[in-house]
Protein backbone atom coordinates (compact mmCIF):
# COMPACT_ATOMS: atom_id res chain seq x y z
CA UNK A 1 0.00 0.00 0.00
CA UNK A 2 1.47 3.34 -1.03
CA UNK A 3 0.68 6.59 0.62
CA UNK A 4 0.85 10.08 -0.70
CA UNK A 5 3.91 12.15 0.02
CA UNK A 6 2.01 14.33 2.45
CA UNK A 7 1.55 11.37 4.72
CA UNK A 8 5.29 10.82 4.85
CA UNK A 9 5.78 14.44 5.73
CA UNK A 10 3.23 14.10 8.50
CA UNK A 11 4.97 10.99 9.83
CA UNK A 12 8.26 12.89 9.81
CA UNK A 13 6.75 15.77 11.70
CA UNK A 14 5.00 13.40 14.09
CA UNK A 15 8.18 11.49 14.88
CA UNK A 16 10.22 14.63 15.35
CA UNK A 17 7.49 16.09 17.55
CA UNK A 18 6.89 19.15 15.42
CA UNK A 19 3.13 18.74 14.93
CA UNK A 20 0.84 21.16 16.75
CA UNK A 21 -1.28 19.72 19.54
CA UNK A 22 -4.41 19.66 17.36
CA UNK A 23 -2.57 18.13 14.41
CA UNK A 24 -1.04 15.53 16.63
CA UNK A 25 -4.38 14.60 18.11
CA UNK A 26 -5.96 14.32 14.67
CA UNK A 27 -3.07 12.18 13.41
CA UNK A 28 -3.16 9.86 16.41
CA UNK A 29 -6.86 9.42 15.77
CA UNK A 30 -6.04 8.45 12.20
CA UNK A 31 -3.38 5.98 13.36
CA UNK A 32 -5.77 4.08 15.60
CA UNK A 33 -8.13 3.65 12.68
CA UNK A 34 -5.55 2.59 10.16
CA UNK A 35 -3.12 -0.24 10.99
CA UNK A 36 -1.26 0.36 7.71
CA UNK A 37 -0.16 3.75 9.00
CA UNK A 38 1.14 2.08 12.14
CA UNK A 39 3.32 -0.17 10.00
CA UNK A 40 4.61 2.83 8.05
CA UNK A 41 5.49 4.62 11.26
CA UNK A 42 7.22 1.54 12.60
CA UNK A 43 9.25 1.27 9.41
CA UNK A 44 10.28 4.91 9.49
CA UNK A 45 11.08 4.91 13.14
CA UNK A 46 13.09 1.70 13.10
CA UNK A 47 14.95 2.75 9.96
CA UNK A 48 15.87 5.99 11.65
CA UNK A 49 17.08 4.08 14.70
CA UNK A 50 19.16 1.83 12.48
CA UNK A 51 20.78 4.68 10.55
CA UNK A 52 21.56 6.46 13.81
CA UNK A 53 23.33 3.40 15.04
CA UNK A 54 20.67 2.51 17.61
CA UNK A 55 18.96 -0.85 17.96
CA UNK A 56 16.06 -1.45 15.55
CA UNK A 57 12.95 -1.65 17.72
CA UNK A 58 9.80 -3.30 16.48
CA UNK A 59 6.33 -3.08 18.00
CA UNK A 60 5.28 -6.58 19.13
CA UNK A 61 1.61 -5.66 18.59
CA UNK A 62 2.28 -5.49 14.84
CA UNK A 63 3.92 -8.91 14.67
CA UNK A 64 1.71 -11.08 16.84
CA UNK A 65 1.46 -13.93 14.35
CA UNK A 66 5.20 -14.30 13.79
CA UNK A 67 5.94 -13.92 17.48
CA UNK A 68 3.41 -16.61 18.29
CA UNK A 69 5.00 -19.03 15.82
CA UNK A 70 8.54 -18.38 16.97
CA UNK A 71 7.78 -18.61 20.67
CA UNK A 72 5.76 -21.78 20.07
CA UNK A 73 8.89 -23.33 18.57
CA UNK A 74 10.96 -22.08 21.48
CA UNK A 75 8.59 -23.91 23.83
CA UNK A 76 8.55 -27.15 21.83
CA UNK A 77 10.14 -30.27 23.33
CA UNK A 78 12.66 -30.37 20.51
CA UNK A 79 13.91 -26.88 21.26
CA UNK A 80 13.78 -27.23 25.05
CA UNK A 81 15.94 -30.37 24.74
CA UNK A 82 18.53 -28.52 22.65
CA UNK A 83 18.50 -25.65 25.13
CA UNK A 84 18.95 -27.89 28.15
CA UNK A 85 21.85 -29.67 26.51
CA UNK A 86 23.47 -26.36 25.64
CA UNK A 87 23.14 -25.19 29.25
CA UNK A 88 24.42 -28.49 30.59
CA UNK A 89 27.58 -28.30 28.49
CA UNK A 90 27.83 -24.64 29.52
CA UNK A 91 27.76 -25.58 33.20
CA UNK A 92 30.64 -27.99 32.61
CA UNK A 93 32.56 -25.32 30.76
CA UNK A 94 31.92 -22.51 33.24
CA UNK A 95 32.82 -24.64 36.23
CA UNK A 96 36.30 -25.40 34.93
CA UNK A 97 39.08 -23.24 36.34
CA UNK A 98 40.71 -21.28 33.52
CA UNK A 99 43.14 -23.88 32.21
CA UNK A 100 46.67 -23.11 31.15
CA UNK A 101 47.56 -23.94 27.59
CA UNK A 102 49.50 -27.03 28.63
CA UNK A 103 46.75 -28.53 30.71
CA UNK A 104 43.91 -27.55 28.43
CA UNK A 105 43.44 -30.91 26.69
CA UNK A 106 43.28 -32.70 30.01
CA UNK A 107 40.54 -30.51 31.43
CA UNK A 108 38.72 -30.79 28.19
CA UNK A 109 38.82 -34.57 28.18
CA UNK A 110 37.83 -34.72 31.85
CA UNK A 111 34.92 -32.37 31.32
CA UNK A 112 33.56 -34.46 28.50
CA UNK A 113 34.03 -37.64 30.53
CA UNK A 114 32.13 -36.18 33.48
CA UNK A 115 29.37 -35.09 31.18
CA UNK A 116 29.11 -38.44 29.46
CA UNK A 117 29.16 -40.34 32.76
CA UNK A 118 26.51 -38.00 34.10
CA UNK A 119 24.26 -38.49 31.15
CA UNK A 120 24.72 -42.24 31.05
CA UNK A 121 24.01 -42.61 34.76
CA UNK A 122 20.84 -40.57 34.46
CA UNK A 123 19.66 -42.95 31.81
CA UNK A 124 20.81 -46.07 33.68
CA UNK A 125 18.79 -45.58 36.82
CA UNK A 126 15.32 -46.57 35.86
CA UNK A 127 14.00 -45.87 39.34
CA UNK A 128 15.24 -42.41 40.23
CA UNK A 129 15.28 -41.26 43.83
CA UNK A 130 12.90 -38.53 44.95
CA UNK A 131 15.87 -36.15 45.03
CA UNK A 132 16.57 -36.85 41.40
CA UNK A 133 12.90 -36.46 40.56
CA UNK A 134 12.80 -33.14 42.35
CA UNK A 135 15.88 -31.97 40.47
CA UNK A 136 14.36 -33.08 37.20
CA UNK A 137 10.98 -31.48 37.65
CA UNK A 138 11.73 -28.36 39.71
CA UNK A 139 13.15 -26.37 36.82
CA UNK A 140 11.15 -23.19 37.54
CA UNK A 141 11.27 -22.37 33.84
CA UNK A 142 7.50 -21.89 33.76
CA UNK A 143 7.44 -19.06 36.28
CA UNK A 144 6.03 -15.97 34.57
CA UNK A 145 8.58 -13.20 34.20
CA UNK A 146 8.32 -10.23 36.50
CA UNK A 147 10.41 -8.09 34.21
CA UNK A 148 8.50 -5.21 32.71
CA UNK A 149 9.37 -4.64 29.05
CA UNK A 150 12.31 -2.32 28.77
CA UNK A 151 12.77 -2.00 32.49
CA UNK A 152 14.96 -4.34 34.48
CA UNK A 153 15.32 -1.91 37.32
CA UNK A 154 12.10 -2.63 39.22
CA UNK A 155 12.48 -4.30 42.56
CA UNK A 156 10.61 -7.48 41.64
CA UNK A 157 12.62 -7.75 38.41
CA UNK A 158 15.78 -7.64 40.52
CA UNK A 159 14.29 -10.35 42.69
CA UNK A 160 13.64 -12.44 39.62
CA UNK A 161 17.22 -11.97 38.41
CA UNK A 162 18.59 -12.97 41.81
CA UNK A 163 16.33 -16.01 41.83
CA UNK A 164 17.74 -17.25 38.54
CA UNK A 165 21.25 -16.59 39.79
CA UNK A 166 20.34 -18.90 42.64
CA UNK A 167 20.91 -16.11 45.15
CA UNK A 168 17.80 -17.16 47.03
CA UNK A 169 18.48 -15.36 50.29
CA UNK A 170 18.66 -11.98 48.55
CA UNK A 171 15.70 -12.85 46.34
CA UNK A 172 13.61 -13.73 49.39
CA UNK A 173 14.39 -10.40 51.01
CA UNK A 174 13.11 -8.56 47.95
CA UNK A 175 10.01 -10.70 47.48
CA UNK A 176 9.09 -10.56 51.17
CA UNK A 177 8.99 -6.75 50.97
CA UNK A 178 7.23 -6.76 47.62
CA UNK A 179 4.37 -9.01 48.64
CA UNK A 180 3.11 -6.63 51.31
CA UNK A 181 2.62 -3.87 48.79
CA UNK A 182 1.75 -6.05 45.86
CA UNK A 183 -0.16 -9.25 46.42
CA UNK A 184 0.47 -10.56 42.95
CA UNK A 185 0.30 -14.38 43.11
CA UNK A 186 3.37 -14.66 40.90
CA UNK A 187 5.44 -13.27 43.75
CA UNK A 188 4.20 -16.08 46.00
CA UNK A 189 5.40 -18.56 43.42
CA UNK A 190 8.88 -17.02 43.32
CA UNK A 191 8.97 -16.68 47.08
CA UNK A 192 7.81 -20.26 47.62
CA UNK A 193 10.29 -21.51 45.02
CA UNK A 194 13.12 -19.57 46.71
CA UNK A 195 12.30 -21.02 50.13
CA UNK A 196 12.02 -24.48 48.65
CA UNK A 197 15.39 -24.22 46.94
CA UNK A 198 16.88 -23.07 50.25
CA UNK A 199 15.42 -26.15 51.91
CA UNK A 200 12.80 -24.30 53.96
CA UNK A 201 9.96 -26.59 52.92
CA UNK A 202 7.63 -25.44 55.69
CA UNK A 203 7.55 -21.84 54.50
CA UNK A 204 7.33 -22.97 50.88
CA UNK A 205 4.33 -25.20 51.56
CA UNK A 206 2.59 -22.40 53.48
CA UNK A 207 3.04 -20.03 50.53
CA UNK A 208 1.85 -22.52 47.95
CA UNK A 209 -1.15 -23.31 50.16
CA UNK A 210 -1.85 -19.57 50.30
CA UNK A 211 -1.69 -19.49 46.51
CA UNK A 212 -4.05 -22.46 46.31
CA UNK A 213 -6.59 -20.76 48.59
CA UNK A 214 -6.24 -17.37 46.89
CA UNK A 215 -8.96 -17.97 44.31
CA UNK A 216 -6.90 -16.30 41.60
CA UNK A 217 -6.22 -17.47 38.06
CA UNK A 218 -2.98 -19.00 39.29
CA UNK A 219 -4.56 -20.99 42.15
CA UNK A 220 -4.72 -24.29 40.20
CA UNK A 221 -0.96 -24.10 39.63
CA UNK A 222 -0.43 -24.36 43.39
CA UNK A 223 -0.96 -28.14 43.28
CA UNK A 224 2.11 -28.53 41.08
CA UNK A 225 4.27 -26.54 43.47
CA UNK A 226 2.84 -28.35 46.48
CA UNK A 227 3.71 -31.63 44.78
CA UNK A 228 7.30 -30.46 44.31
CA UNK A 229 7.51 -29.26 47.89
CA UNK A 230 6.23 -32.57 49.31
CA UNK A 231 8.58 -34.39 46.97
CA UNK A 232 11.45 -32.46 48.49
CA UNK A 233 10.37 -33.41 52.01
CA UNK A 234 10.20 -37.03 50.89
CA UNK A 235 6.48 -37.17 51.49
CA UNK A 236 5.59 -39.02 48.32
CA UNK A 237 2.02 -39.76 49.34
CA UNK A 238 1.06 -36.10 49.71
CA UNK A 239 2.99 -35.30 46.57
CA UNK A 240 0.91 -37.84 44.69
CA UNK A 241 -2.30 -36.41 46.14
CA UNK A 242 -1.42 -32.92 44.93
CA UNK A 243 -0.60 -34.29 41.47
CA UNK A 244 -3.87 -36.16 41.29
CA UNK A 245 -5.70 -32.97 42.19
CA UNK A 246 -3.81 -31.09 39.51
CA UNK A 247 -4.63 -33.70 36.87
CA UNK A 248 -8.32 -33.70 37.83
CA UNK A 249 -8.66 -29.92 37.34
CA UNK A 250 -9.54 -28.72 33.88
CA UNK A 251 -6.35 -26.78 33.57
CA UNK A 252 -3.55 -27.26 31.09
CA UNK A 253 -0.81 -26.31 33.47
CA UNK A 254 1.88 -29.02 33.75
CA UNK A 255 -0.54 -31.84 32.89
CA UNK A 256 1.99 -33.94 31.00
CA UNK A 257 4.68 -33.49 33.65
CA UNK A 258 2.20 -34.28 36.42
CA UNK A 259 1.23 -37.55 34.77
CA UNK A 260 4.88 -38.49 34.22
CA UNK A 261 5.88 -37.61 37.75
CA UNK A 262 2.92 -39.46 39.21
CA UNK A 263 3.96 -42.46 37.14
CA UNK A 264 7.50 -42.27 38.45
CA UNK A 265 6.23 -42.09 42.03
CA UNK A 266 3.83 -45.05 41.72
Amino acid at each position, binding site marked *: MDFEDTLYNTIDAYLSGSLSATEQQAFEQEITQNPEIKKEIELYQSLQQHLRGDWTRLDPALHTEELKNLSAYRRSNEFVDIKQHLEQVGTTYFEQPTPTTKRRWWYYAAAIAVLVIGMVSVQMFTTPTTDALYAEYATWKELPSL*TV*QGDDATTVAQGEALFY*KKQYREAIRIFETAQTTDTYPTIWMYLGASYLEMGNTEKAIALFQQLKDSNTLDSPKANWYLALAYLKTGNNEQSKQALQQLISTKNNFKQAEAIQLLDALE
Partner: protein
Amino acid sequence: MNRTKPQAVAAETYIQALINKDSTIVYDIYQRFFPKTLQYVTQNQGTEEQAKDVFQESLLHIIVGSQKKRLTIQNFEAYLFTVCKNMWRREAESQKKRVIYSEFPTLIDKDTDMALFALEQERQEIYRDQFQLLSTNCQEILALFFNNTSYEAIVEELSYASINTARQRIFKCRNKLVSLIKKAIHHY
Protein backbone atom coordinates in the same frame (compact mmCIF):
# COMPACT_ATOMS: atom_id res chain seq x y z
CA MET B 1 47.37 -15.60 20.97
CA ASN B 2 50.46 -17.66 20.45
CA ARG B 3 48.85 -20.72 18.98
CA THR B 4 48.27 -21.16 15.31
CA LYS B 5 44.95 -20.00 13.98
CA PRO B 6 42.43 -22.82 14.16
CA GLN B 7 40.88 -23.84 10.90
CA ALA B 8 37.51 -22.25 10.30
CA VAL B 9 34.88 -24.91 10.86
CA ALA B 10 31.89 -24.69 8.57
CA ALA B 11 28.95 -22.93 10.22
CA GLU B 12 26.72 -25.86 9.34
CA THR B 13 28.88 -28.22 11.42
CA TYR B 14 28.33 -26.11 14.51
CA ILE B 15 24.62 -25.69 13.91
CA GLN B 16 24.15 -29.44 13.41
CA ALA B 17 26.17 -30.14 16.56
CA LEU B 18 23.89 -27.86 18.59
CA ILE B 19 20.77 -29.47 17.17
CA ASN B 20 22.09 -33.02 17.55
CA LYS B 21 23.36 -32.29 21.07
CA ASP B 22 26.95 -33.22 20.29
CA SER B 23 28.64 -32.43 23.60
CA THR B 24 32.19 -32.42 22.25
CA ILE B 25 31.57 -29.84 19.57
CA VAL B 26 29.25 -27.75 21.75
CA TYR B 27 31.97 -27.64 24.41
CA ASP B 28 34.34 -26.54 21.69
CA ILE B 29 31.95 -23.69 20.81
CA TYR B 30 32.10 -22.39 24.39
CA GLN B 31 35.83 -22.74 24.49
CA ARG B 32 36.54 -21.01 21.24
CA PHE B 33 33.97 -18.25 21.22
CA PHE B 34 32.79 -17.44 24.74
CA PRO B 35 35.87 -15.45 25.86
CA LYS B 36 35.28 -12.78 23.21
CA THR B 37 31.66 -12.30 24.29
CA LEU B 38 32.69 -12.23 27.94
CA GLN B 39 35.18 -9.52 27.17
CA TYR B 40 32.67 -7.45 25.20
CA VAL B 41 29.90 -7.65 27.79
CA THR B 42 32.12 -6.99 30.79
CA GLN B 43 33.72 -4.04 29.06
CA ASN B 44 30.27 -2.62 28.46
CA GLN B 45 28.86 -2.50 31.98
CA GLY B 46 27.77 -6.13 32.05
CA THR B 47 28.51 -8.96 34.44
CA GLU B 48 29.93 -12.40 33.71
CA GLU B 49 26.49 -13.88 34.42
CA GLN B 50 24.94 -11.59 31.82
CA ALA B 51 27.66 -12.54 29.34
CA LYS B 52 26.80 -16.24 29.79
CA ASP B 53 23.14 -15.54 29.25
CA VAL B 54 23.76 -13.46 26.13
CA PHE B 55 26.10 -16.12 24.72
CA GLN B 56 23.66 -18.98 25.23
CA GLU B 57 20.70 -16.99 23.95
CA SER B 58 22.68 -16.01 20.85
CA LEU B 59 23.39 -19.66 20.08
CA LEU B 60 19.70 -20.41 20.55
CA HIS B 61 18.90 -17.51 18.24
CA ILE B 62 21.00 -19.17 15.55
CA ILE B 63 19.13 -22.46 16.05
CA VAL B 64 15.73 -20.75 15.77
CA GLY B 65 16.94 -18.88 12.70
CA SER B 66 18.17 -21.99 10.96
CA GLN B 67 15.11 -24.07 11.87
CA LYS B 68 12.30 -21.54 11.52
CA LYS B 69 13.68 -18.78 9.34
CA ARG B 70 15.86 -18.87 6.29
CA LEU B 71 19.01 -17.93 8.12
CA THR B 72 22.24 -18.74 6.30
CA ILE B 73 25.56 -18.01 7.93
CA GLN B 74 28.83 -17.55 6.10
CA ASN B 75 31.10 -17.30 9.10
CA PHE B 76 29.86 -18.79 12.36
CA GLU B 77 32.24 -16.93 14.64
CA ALA B 78 31.58 -13.53 13.07
CA TYR B 79 27.82 -14.00 13.03
CA LEU B 80 27.68 -15.31 16.58
CA PHE B 81 29.69 -12.38 17.86
CA THR B 82 27.51 -9.88 15.98
CA VAL B 83 24.40 -11.39 17.52
CA CYS B 84 25.96 -11.36 21.00
CA LYS B 85 26.90 -7.72 20.60
CA ASN B 86 23.45 -6.78 19.33
CA MET B 87 21.69 -8.66 22.08
CA TRP B 88 23.77 -6.95 24.73
CA ARG B 89 23.35 -3.55 23.08
CA ARG B 90 19.59 -4.03 23.02
CA GLU B 91 19.57 -5.14 26.63
CA ALA B 92 21.65 -2.16 27.72
CA GLU B 93 19.48 0.26 25.75
CA SER B 94 16.26 -1.06 27.23
CA GLN B 95 17.70 -0.77 30.70
CA LYS B 96 18.22 2.90 29.97
CA LYS B 97 14.90 3.85 28.54
CA ARG B 98 11.39 2.56 28.58
CA VAL B 99 9.97 1.88 25.14
CA ILE B 100 7.30 4.34 24.13
CA TYR B 101 4.82 2.28 22.12
CA SER B 102 1.51 2.66 23.89
CA GLU B 103 0.24 -0.82 23.12
CA PHE B 104 3.26 -2.59 24.55
CA PRO B 105 2.19 -5.35 26.85
CA THR B 106 3.51 -4.53 30.29
CA LEU B 107 4.79 -8.04 30.87
CA ILE B 108 6.58 -9.94 28.15
CA ASP B 109 8.00 -13.39 28.73
CA LYS B 110 11.52 -14.36 27.78
CA ASP B 111 10.55 -16.57 24.82
CA THR B 112 8.45 -13.83 23.26
CA ASP B 113 11.12 -11.25 23.93
CA MET B 114 13.75 -13.42 22.24
CA ALA B 115 11.36 -14.02 19.33
CA LEU B 116 11.03 -10.24 19.05
CA PHE B 117 14.80 -9.96 19.12
CA ALA B 118 14.95 -12.41 16.19
CA LEU B 119 12.56 -10.25 14.17
CA GLU B 120 14.50 -7.12 15.03
CA GLN B 121 17.82 -8.71 14.14
CA GLU B 122 16.40 -9.88 10.81
CA ARG B 123 14.97 -6.43 10.14
CA GLN B 124 18.30 -4.83 10.89
CA GLU B 125 20.01 -7.13 8.40
CA ILE B 126 17.46 -6.12 5.75
CA TYR B 127 18.02 -2.42 6.42
CA ARG B 128 21.77 -2.83 6.21
CA ASP B 129 21.72 -4.86 3.00
CA GLN B 130 19.22 -2.62 1.22
CA PHE B 131 21.06 0.53 2.25
CA GLN B 132 24.14 -0.88 0.54
CA LEU B 133 22.19 -1.04 -2.72
CA LEU B 134 21.74 2.75 -2.82
CA SER B 135 24.11 5.01 -4.70
CA THR B 136 27.00 6.39 -2.67
CA ASN B 137 25.47 9.84 -2.87
CA CYS B 138 22.15 8.60 -1.48
CA GLN B 139 23.94 6.75 1.32
CA GLU B 140 25.86 9.86 2.28
CA ILE B 141 22.92 12.22 2.31
CA LEU B 142 20.66 9.82 4.23
CA ALA B 143 23.32 9.13 6.82
CA LEU B 144 23.67 12.87 7.42
CA PHE B 145 19.93 13.46 7.43
CA PHE B 146 19.10 10.67 9.88
CA ASN B 147 21.81 11.80 12.22
CA ASN B 148 20.04 15.14 12.57
CA THR B 149 22.43 17.14 10.43
CA SER B 150 20.74 20.42 9.48
CA TYR B 151 19.81 21.07 5.84
CA GLU B 152 22.26 23.97 5.82
CA ALA B 153 25.11 21.69 6.85
CA ILE B 154 24.07 19.03 4.34
CA VAL B 155 24.03 21.64 1.52
CA GLU B 156 27.52 22.68 2.49
CA GLU B 157 28.92 19.21 3.04
CA LEU B 158 27.64 17.74 -0.24
CA SER B 159 27.76 20.97 -2.32
CA TYR B 160 24.10 21.20 -3.22
CA ALA B 161 22.74 24.27 -5.01
CA SER B 162 20.08 25.00 -2.42
CA ILE B 163 18.25 23.65 0.60
CA ASN B 164 15.37 22.79 -1.66
CA THR B 165 17.52 20.61 -3.92
CA ALA B 166 18.89 18.80 -0.88
CA ARG B 167 15.40 18.31 0.51
CA GLN B 168 14.19 16.79 -2.76
CA ARG B 169 17.23 14.56 -2.95
CA ILE B 170 16.66 13.27 0.57
CA PHE B 171 13.05 12.63 -0.22
CA LYS B 172 13.92 10.65 -3.35
CA CYS B 173 16.66 8.63 -1.67
CA ARG B 174 14.53 7.78 1.28
CA ASN B 175 11.61 6.69 -0.87
CA LYS B 176 13.96 4.51 -2.87
CA LEU B 177 15.30 2.93 0.31
CA VAL B 178 11.84 2.40 1.77
CA SER B 179 10.60 0.73 -1.40
CA LEU B 180 13.67 -1.56 -1.51
CA ILE B 181 13.09 -2.49 2.12
CA LYS B 182 9.41 -3.20 1.60
CA LYS B 183 10.23 -5.49 -1.28
CA ALA B 184 12.84 -7.30 0.82
CA ILE B 185 10.49 -7.69 3.79
CA HIS B 186 7.94 -9.15 1.44
CA HIS B 187 10.51 -11.69 0.34
CA TYR B 188 11.13 -13.03 3.83
